[in-house]
């Protein structure tokens, strides 16, 4: 199933010859590429004058897309390995609350709170995976249970320790911390100041920020998204472990017969999904300075939708990280773009449903073209 097998034996008479163009064209992310072009074309026509393509507008949908990408990369690898994680959204709320409680209520330094939270989240991810493997139950059910458990624990722990469901003050506590800027900071600030001075981008027109560029820098959220895409793509397509992921999701039994450590692969993928959710939560808490018990609601579905738009198969064994990232980009651009286009906000979900449906239909055709199945 992997691409390396297709390309290696070109001179084998059993393999059907394909033109290089055809070869380049048929890939899992084709639907995503096609969809991205279509979406940008569409919004360029309808929302060109609305500020959507101004620097602040671009930054707005880029950040939203980057958020989706971070959780979509984790969900994508897990889905290719043949499992689901419905606890991503609750994990985001849980991780954010954990950082706020550890640092604000218990007085730990921010860097320690972040590290402990990452350990805690990945432990929960491992527990998710272990339960799925040990019980043989569908991951759909096990992680659905954790959707409720984690959300409930988040609300309970917040109320029990502080009597509030929103805990603020993290931004002040993170002042001068060495680890916090890695999640909530901004890079290339100098470049944007320089661009602002040259009048290439707008500057604030009043208030204490007067004269500063409207974009301070590239948020770390976007850097994390890019790093995760590159890491996920290389892991999946260039390493032995990547082949194991495909094999575990394609046919777990066959894979374990040929020596693939299916259990280890799946548990590691559950941990990676939790890791991604934790990055999302940490970046959010560091940027906004507070954690809320209701953060991350329904984010698990947004991650899964991004992955499916990106061409991955719900049953596992097929998909690509680039595709998932493009799916997340489409999702983010459509979500914010509809606001720019001034569409009535109650119609947002209608659009989401239509796009999801179209993407799945399109991807099914493309997959049949690739695999030759009828």
């Amino acid at each position: 199933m992997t691409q390396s097998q297709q390309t290696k034996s070109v001179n084998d008479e059993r393999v059907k010859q394909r033109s290089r163009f055809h070869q380049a064209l048929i890939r899992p992310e084709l639907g995503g590429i096609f969809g991205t072009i279509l979406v940008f074309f569409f919004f360029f026509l309808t929302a060109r004058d609305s500020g959507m393509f101004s620097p602040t507008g671009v930054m707005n949908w880029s950040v939203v897309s980057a958020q989706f990408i971070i959780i979509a990369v984790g969900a994508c690898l897990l889905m290719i390995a043949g499992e689901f994680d419905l606890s991503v959204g609750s994990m985001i709320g849980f991780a954010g609350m954990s950082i706020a409680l550890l640092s604000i209520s218990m007085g730990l330094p921010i860097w320690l709170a972040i590290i402990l939270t990452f350990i805690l989240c990945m432990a929960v991810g491992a527990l998710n995976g272990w339960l799925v493997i040990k019980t043989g139950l569908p991951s759909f059910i096990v992680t659905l249970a954790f959707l409720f458990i984690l959300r409930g624990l988040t609300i309970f722990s917040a109320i029990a320790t502080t009597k509030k469901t929103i805990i603020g003050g993290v931004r002040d506590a993170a002042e001068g911390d060495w680890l916090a800027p890695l999640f909530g900071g901004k890079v290339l600030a100098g470049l944007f100041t320089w661009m602002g001075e040259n009048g290439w981008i707008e500057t604030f027109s009043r208030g204490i920020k007067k004269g500063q560029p409207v974009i301070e820098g590239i948020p770390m959220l976007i850097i994390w998204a890019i790093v995760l895409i590159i890491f996920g793509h290389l892991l999946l397509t260039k390493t032995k472990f990547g082949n194991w992921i495909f094999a575990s999701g394609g046919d777990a039994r066959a894979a374990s017969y040929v020596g693939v450590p299916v259990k280890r692969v799946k548990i590691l993928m559950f941990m990676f999904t939790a890791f991604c959710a934790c990055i999302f939560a940490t970046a959010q808490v560091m940027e906004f300075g507070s954690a809320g018990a209701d953060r991350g609601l329904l984010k698990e579905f947004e991650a899964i939708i991004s992955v499916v738009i990106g061409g991955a198969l719900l049953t596992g064994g097929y998909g690509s990280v680039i595709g998932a990232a493009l799916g997340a980009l489409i999702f983010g651009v459509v979500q914010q773009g509809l606001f720019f286009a001034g569409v009535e906000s109650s119609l947002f979900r209608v659009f989401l449903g239509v796009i999801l449906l179209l993407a799945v239909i399109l991807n099914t055709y493309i997959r049949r073209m690739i695999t030759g199945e009828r």
Partner: protein
Amino acid sequence: MKTIKLLAVAALFIAIAAPLAMVPASALADGERYVLVSHAPDSDSWWNTIKNGIELAGEQLGVTVEYRNPPTGDLADMARIIEQATASRPNGIITTLADYDVLSGPIKDAVAQGVNVIIMNSGTPEQTREVGALMFVGQPEYDAGYAAGLRAKGDGIKSFVCVNHVISNTVVAERCRGFADGLGVELGNSMLDSGQDPAEIKNRVLAYLSANPKTEAILTLGPTSADPTIAALKENGMAGDIYFGTFDLGTEIVNGIKSGIIQWGIDQQPFLQAYLPVVVLANYDRFGVLPGNNINSGPGFVTKEGLELVEKYAGKYR
């Protein structure tokens, strides 16, 4: 064959999406454009009044007002929506300040980019000043409680119990404190932590009233605590005898006012929270005039006399 199918799908996409996107493009042509960003999830029906309010204001003034909200009520998503609204360069933004930590950054950036901002519904006058917004339109909880206390004092009340079903919410507890100050009595033990469960609320109210039979008045803080309290009073026979006031309106509360069990209900009048900011912003943009202070949309006292209009417009403008 397959390419044709792909093209058909693409055509379908554009066919569905294009007409919907065309509507606002034509509406943008005349008048100012304002965006109202709320913190409420799609399922919150209370905000329907807000939507109707801005629609009416938009019609009457010839301006476009768009309503936006985070679909799940996630405040971090709301911050992104405010950033997005700023990038679309509207004449003004009307928004709530549900969480100062999360929302103050995007709101300050909007103000600094030359977009006028009015805070509605949630927030305090101090926070409004700090983010650089023009004004706050809402019901200051302490003042509303104080006004209610003065009213009760005028009716000869000297002691009360405040049935608080959201003891963890410090802002709502301000209503009880204001009421006590308005009456001119110490709050002391008059605040009853009732919990959220209807049966529990009812029993605690009954227990409190039998332990403190000289209590002259009851104040409830919303339908959650008012409805079981009505049931409790009907059970112990004090209904109609004891002085009973409540915050917010609901079907049971309106019926209670009608039958004389409840003397008054305090409406924070969401219609005004939506309608007035649009009027203020439009007149500020057109003529440069601005009211000198924050606007209190409440407390609006609903008594037996004013019930007709409340019932007629319940869910639409009330």
